């Protein structure tokens, strides 16, 4: 062994953080930017192919921008759409980190939202300060429990969560149809499946209605931001998050290290489901005011894309969710102004993920965008 000072020197150098490499930058910034740009171009080609003329295409992109960023209302809509996407996306991202591919966010959103509604109107006499948070919590708990079913099955029997969560989604749709017909839940005087309304005291207050009553942005925004911070802390600072990540990267090593794999799976699934349930709750308490069949509107599926685009990192998911929220709000404007179907947005979203999830593909298509010695990715 060498003398003390040289050991200290060695330790100091070991503890020096390495600078972020070019490849990491490409991965985190260049590829996503690329993906979005290419997907938009492809969207344009699709429009051309379906006989939309150039002027209308131009108009639709203007509308896309205007509808997502162009006004207070646009921004409000973008953020409103982003809230559930980010919340559910955080859950999925956390699941991905733990090696769980949870396709079931949709069902968790549905049941979580329904639970929040039921809790809300059941205890309608409680004051706002109690009822609103508890309703959110009810949504989170039910979403978490529903997801935990898939987790428990995986932990106990090895049943693959992709299949079980797909099945749980299908079950949740039927379950919701059934629940919404129950006299206790169904809105008075209605024969169709629709729940009673959420009382005012359970609603997430709208933030900007003093400006304009049509601005729907609600206090779920703060729930979303808090969730971003919380998930970041869980993943990268907490002990349980360490176990999540270790299990996700190498379940054998996690088991060897004494992490109870079953517990980790159930906990990760539960947390993911709780976030999805929260997404559903914030949607009903902040936007819809009641539950109806399919009120989740594919939030759970879009959130998969959001989590992938955000690289399962809480901050990435925040940005990705806002981007997708913007696409949704802008897409609506696109339909109004240019008469281009909002389904175009789904195509663009799918393409974004293709390029994100297959960086090899991006590199194959655009070899000149990568691995150059020059700094920065501005050549994109």
């Amino acid at each position, binding site marked *: 062994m060498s003398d003390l000072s040289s050991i200290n020197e060695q*330790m100091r150098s070991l503890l020096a953080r*390495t600078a972020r490499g070019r490849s990491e930058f490409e991965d985190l910034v260049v590829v996503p930017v690329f993906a979005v740009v290419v997907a938009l171009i492809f969207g344009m080609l699709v429009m051309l192919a379906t006989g939309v003329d150039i002027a209308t295409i131009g108009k639709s992109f203007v509308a896309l921008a205007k509808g997502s960023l162009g006004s207070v209302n646009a921004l409000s809509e973008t953020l409103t759409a982003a809230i559930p996407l980010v919340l559910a996306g955080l859950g999925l991202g956390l699941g991905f980190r733990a090696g769980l591919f949870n396709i079931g966010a949709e069902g968790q959103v549905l049941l979580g939202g329904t639970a929040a509604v039921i809790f809300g109107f059941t205890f309608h006499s409680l004051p706002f300060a109690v009822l609103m948070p508890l309703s959110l919590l009810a949504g989170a708990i039910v979403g978490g429990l529903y997801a935990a079913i898939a987790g428990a099955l995986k932990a106990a029997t090895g049943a693959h969560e992709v299949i079980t969560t797909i099945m749980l989604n299908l079950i949740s749709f039927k379950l919701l149809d059934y629940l919404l017909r129950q006299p206790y839940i169904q809105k008075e005087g209605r024969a169709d499946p629709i729940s009673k309304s959420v009382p005012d005291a359970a609603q997430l207050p709208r933030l900007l209605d003093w400006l304009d009553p049509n601005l729907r942005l609600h206090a779920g925004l703060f729930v979303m931001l808090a969730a971003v911070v919380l998930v970041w802390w869980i993943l990268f*600072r907490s002990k*349980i998050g360490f176990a999540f990540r270790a299990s996700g*990267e190498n379940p054998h*090593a996690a088991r060897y*290290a*004494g992490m109870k794999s079953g517990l980790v799976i159930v906990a990760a699934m539960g947390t993911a489901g709780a976030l999805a349930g929260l997404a559903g709750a914030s949607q009903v308490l902040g936007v819809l005011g009641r539950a109806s069949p399919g009120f989740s509107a594919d939030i759970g599926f879009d959130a998969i894309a959001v989590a992938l685009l955000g690289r399962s990192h809480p901050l990435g998911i925040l940005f990705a969710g806002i981007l997708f929220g913007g696409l949704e709000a802008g897409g609506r404007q696109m339909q109004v102004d240019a008469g281009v179907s909002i389904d175009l947005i789904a195509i663009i979203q799918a393409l974004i993920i293709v390029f994100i999830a297959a960086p090899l593909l991006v590199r194959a298509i655009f070899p000149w965008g990568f691995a150059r010695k020059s700094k920065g990715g501005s050549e994109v």
Partner: protein
Amino acid sequence: MDVELRGITKRFGSVVANDGVNLTIRGGEVLGLLGENGAGKSTMMNILSGLYSPDEGEILIDGKPVVFQGPGDGIEAGIGMVHQHFMLVPVFTVAENVVLGVEPTGRLGYLDLKRARAQVDEINQLYGLHVPADTLIEDLPVGIQQRVEILKVLFRQADVLILDEPTAVLTPQEVEEFFGIVRSLKEAGKAIVFITHKLHEILEVSDRVSVMRQGRIVGEGDPKTLTEADLAEMMVGRPVSFTVDKTVAEPGRPMLEVSDLVVLRDNDEIAVDHLNMVVKSGEVVGIAGVQGNGQSALVEAITGLARAASGKIVFDGKDITHFSVRQRHSEGMAHIPEDRHKSGMVSSFTIAENMVLNSYYEKPYSKGMAIDWPTVHKTAAKYCVDFDVRTPSVFLPAGNLSGGNQQKMVVARELERQTKLVIASQPTRGLDVGSIEYIHSRLIEARDEGDGVLIVSSELDEIMGLSDRILVMFDGRIVAEFDNTGGKADRNAIGLAMAGATEGAAA
């Protein structure tokens, strides 16, 4: 058939696996190819068999250059390879495995399994392999599986057979039988490349030897005129002694007592069968045995990864049969797992994270529900210095380290703590000699500090070199025990016990 490799170079990323290798293989001759792990032997043979294509250089068969696009071309040219990790489909029968790729077919692509069976039996007869054609591979013992591999190669009428570390899974007696098969193949005019890192095997069976180091051929010669020491020096690049320096053990109180332990596999088969054993403090106990005789299950049961179906495990006087992995860990049990990539580390995690992989929840690394990262980083840096883990930073992913440094990282994590019992499973598999020596000395150091040390290894040389006492495991039981003070245990008797013969010593 003669084969010549000229100037073969192969790179994986920035690593040069083969660097201008020249090699000649002749019919009716056994060429021994010797080298440490990572010297580039397997890469070269994969190039020869067509699995990889070389970046530079050429292959000549009987003087004519050939280019292999894929393994199919290698087979076509008469080159067959028996891989170190068997290339058999477990849910297929022997016949199906053998004919895969060269299937006898009828009309409409109909797979003529009857004909396949007949052809398999024919070769069976010819070389005396005795392999049942209709049994599923997963139901066959390892030794027979290897014969299936040879059968596969012969079925394709290979003239050049490449045998990659074929003896790793065999008992000494099975090795003898295997050498018999090799000799009969040689007599039939086949060219054979025998790859190993075991010196005595080279001397026993090969007609010519080539030694590889760091991707190059560093020496060639006639085994009759070479000694083990010569070969070892060529292989490592410096004189090495294969004996581990250690004092006579002073066994103390029993650290680990296993009694009547039964462990089941996933399919309810019995892996460990009413096993009894003791490891005392201050001694190294080695478990010898052919892979697949329940060693892994035994280690898993002791460390808490597998459930004991019945029996008792006592650790330093405390019954830990139903303790969790974590409880055993905090009681002072250290575990160096048999496959570091699979279970010893998380490649994408930083070295620092790996250093606390199984202690992150304890003081001083945890505070409340969170992890105290500055402490973790400092500790990791200290461990790296102490155990000579060579890396520029503890923030790099562990996957970036070389194999030897990865294993040193694992050993550092396990041995830096206060431990009472060290369980090391295949602690030096796949490492270079330098790392092997280093890890061996740390294990002996642990013993000298009063730990009980249990070594499980399929390398009999390693067991013989390290252990004070040797237990032989066969079919889930300890079938023999040998005192190895001063390395005096009878290698031949151990070999017999490994093959299941019980007339030696009783457990």
